[in-house]
């Protein structure tokens, strides 16, 4: 069981490493891609935490983060394209 929390911390650490690209990326597209990947990694950590605690309430949070991250990425992409 405590293996799950360890693996969740590993995923969260990967998301923290990606903050380098989020803050230092040369262009706006780099930052948007990094934010998208951070959202996916955070989702993974949330799902593993739901398995650790055995409660499905955290899965709802993961679903909402997934939806919001997708909408945000598409919005930034359309904005960069100049069609918004």
């Amino acid at each position: 069981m405590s293996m799950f929390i360890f693996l969740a911390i590993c995923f969260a650490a990967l998301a923290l490493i990606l903050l380098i690209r989020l803050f230092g990326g040369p262009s706006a597209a780099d930052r948007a891609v990094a934010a998208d990947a951070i959202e996916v990694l955070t989702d993974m950590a949330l799902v593993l935490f739901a398995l650790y605690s055995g409660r499905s309430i955290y899965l709802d949070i993961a679903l909402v983060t997934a939806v919001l991250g997708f909408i945000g990425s598409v919005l930034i992409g359309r904005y960069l394209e100049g069609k918004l």
Partner: protein
Amino acid sequence: MIYVIYALIIVSLFFAAAGVVGMLRMPDAYCRMQSSTNVGTLGTLGVMIAAVLYSAIYLHDGGMAVKCAVIGIFLILTNPIAGHALAKGAYHHGVRLSKKTIMDKYGEDMEK
């Protein structure tokens, strides 16, 4: 069975780590997008299959297993759409291709 679940999660952790390293090392924004697809596909798939197996076998919670499967399918379905929008937006915004790029048919055809 629990070891199969751990192995699936560790495989997907490996691919996610490879994607993150690729995102830090690749030369330009488009190659970084390729690496971020690596995080979004096999990085999520292993965890989601493991979550479905664990919550169905050990927690005896069918609703939770279905919810895990829905999150996995949703992430896999929406990842390419976001990647496509970001790549096209970056190109029209004027993000440069790296010096290693050997051909650019899209730019040639847009200038016509």
